[in-house]
């Protein structure tokens, strides 16, 4: 390992959990003013995103530990499994905001939309694993369970945010949603990289992508403040 790679790796080991912690903490502090319940859907979405980032500190710490002390592949699956609670918070927040915004504008139920998003996300998640010979998610049930729910939830979140970004294009809130979408896409990519290509979540590239996602999600808080 070259010196530069070591420095980079050291940075990633520290940065990942640190940025996730800071982003999560700042977001919770901002959006949980007055409690965790009783907020409008927009604030609730931002709060759940911040909470999700906070929860993702755990898999970040585990990934950092695994990077320092390499161990069995099963620990890598734990990293993937631990991402699910954080990601599902993102999905819940986004879907409830989508539902509130679209049903308020169009006065129609969005259950069909959400079901469609989940199905499409599942198809998008499964397809690379079928096509790739190196896909760890297709090897056994446990790996599949570690991969599919997280990535499907992320996929559905990305689709919902893309739909919202299209709906509100040209408006100031469109910019906020686009940055949020970018963060989710980056996180989805790092998840797909393991499931489809077998690139470990402890790899430098994957760690960098996670950090980038947290930075983008943190940026949305600043954008929201200046709206």
């Amino acid at each position, binding site marked *: 390992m070259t010196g530069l790679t070591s420095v980079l790796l050291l940075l990633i080991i520290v940065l990942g959990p640190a940025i996730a912690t800071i982003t999560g903490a700042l977001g919770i502090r901002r959006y949980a003013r007055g409690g965790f319940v009783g907020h*409008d859907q*927009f604030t609730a979405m931002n709060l759940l995103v911040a909470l999700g980032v906070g929860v993702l500190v755990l898999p970040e710490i585990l990934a950092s530990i695994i990077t320092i002390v390499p161990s069995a592949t099963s620990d890598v699956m734990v990293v993937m499994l631990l991402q699910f609670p954080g990601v599902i918070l993102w999905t819940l927040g986004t879907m409830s905001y989508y539902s509130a*915004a679209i049903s*308020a504008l169009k006065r129609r139920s969005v259950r069909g939309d959400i079901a469609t998003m989940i199905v499409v996300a599942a198809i998008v998640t499964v397809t690379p694993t079928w096509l790739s010979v190196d896909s760890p998610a297709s090897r056994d049930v446990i790996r599949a369970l570690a991969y599919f729910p997280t990535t499907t939830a992320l996929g559905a979140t990305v689709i919902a945010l893309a739909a919202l970004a299209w709906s*509100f294009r040209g*408006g*100031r*809130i469109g910019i906020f949603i686009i940055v949020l979408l970018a963060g989710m896409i980056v996180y989805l990519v790092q998840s797909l990289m393991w499931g489809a290509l077998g690139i470990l979540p402890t790899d430098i590239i994957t760690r960098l992508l996670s950090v980038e996602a947290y930075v983008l999600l943190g940026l949305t808080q600043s954008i929201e403040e200046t709206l």
Partner: protein
Amino acid sequence: MDAKSLYIIKRESGVCLYHRDFKEPMFDPHLISSFIAAMTSFFTESNYSVMSTARAFEGADYKIVLEFGEWTVGALVVNKDTEALREKLRAIIQEFEKQFSILRYIDLDLAVYTRFEKTVMSEFIFNEITPETIIRKKLNWDLITDNPDVRSFLQLLPEKCSVRDAAEFLEMPVEVAMKLTAEALWERAITVSEPVRPDDIFSATVRGLIGGQTDDVSPDTARAIRELDGETPLAIAAERVKTSDLQRFLEEVAMLARRRAIERVSPSQTAMILWTSLIQQLLNIGAKILGTERTARVFTEARRELLGVYPWLAFVDLEREVDVDIRSGLIASAVKGEISPVIVNDGFRALTQFFTKRLSRYVNMKRVNEAILTVKDTMEKEFPTRCYDIEWELLKVSEESVI
């Protein structure tokens, strides 16, 4: 019809130059003109306030409102003193002074009653008649009027029908039927009333709540009376008590209104309720998309821009995040008729336009216009007729909208 009698009095001499009883005569014109001349003279001469001028006198179930011209005083006997009636009275005085200016200096027989009749009719009668107005013939109408046009009009009509139905029945244009109705009303051969519609807004009076007034109505209607808070349309009140027969409910409401057990809210109040409902729905949509805090800020900014032109908008506030709250001062003005429905409509329309324009910066124009259409659909259910009093196209945001 709120006006009962009209008197135009020469200030200098106290002589009644013109009078008209729209309903049964209440006062002797010479007696009342002397009284008004004396009282106004008293107030003017009184040295406690240079601005002191009598503007109204109140009886048990009537008010005499006064407006002053250059050399005449107009007195209108009314049920309720409203700004709209005062405006009409001022217009009448102005027209009278213009048409009969010579009477200021000398007394002449100028056939005042005949020449001024059309002016008074157009100011007080024609505006009251719409195609939906209900005509009720008086018992001995044929002894009351000699007008051949009115007699032939009323001869074939049933005891009660609308102007539109009368036009259809007699195979004449609605405008002609409206004109004949006005003449019949002028002759006092009929009484007119406005039909009760599902989106009318009434409030229960103390008299109505005390009891006895609602003994002969259906239980549903009696329960619905308590829902009439001066803000709830009749259709919603009927829905709340799960009335089975809306038509019967509306007929009973009309009967209770004639008995004064309930009273229709003023046109200004109605306009205010309509616009408040519209703005509230837009605010709710905005709150779901942008958050309550941001939506409230957008609303407050929009309102601040308009305070110079419509200072009364300061009484339109938000409480508990995005709940529209009209302060009691503005409500009281609307009840008393101190603020006209035209001004209410103008102010709220401007406020809505400013708010939607600002909202479009956050969300984009197409979505805001979609929201406006969604609100329109909802309001068509709550206010089936009044909804169309709002010019929805003017509320939409376009590239050309300028703040």
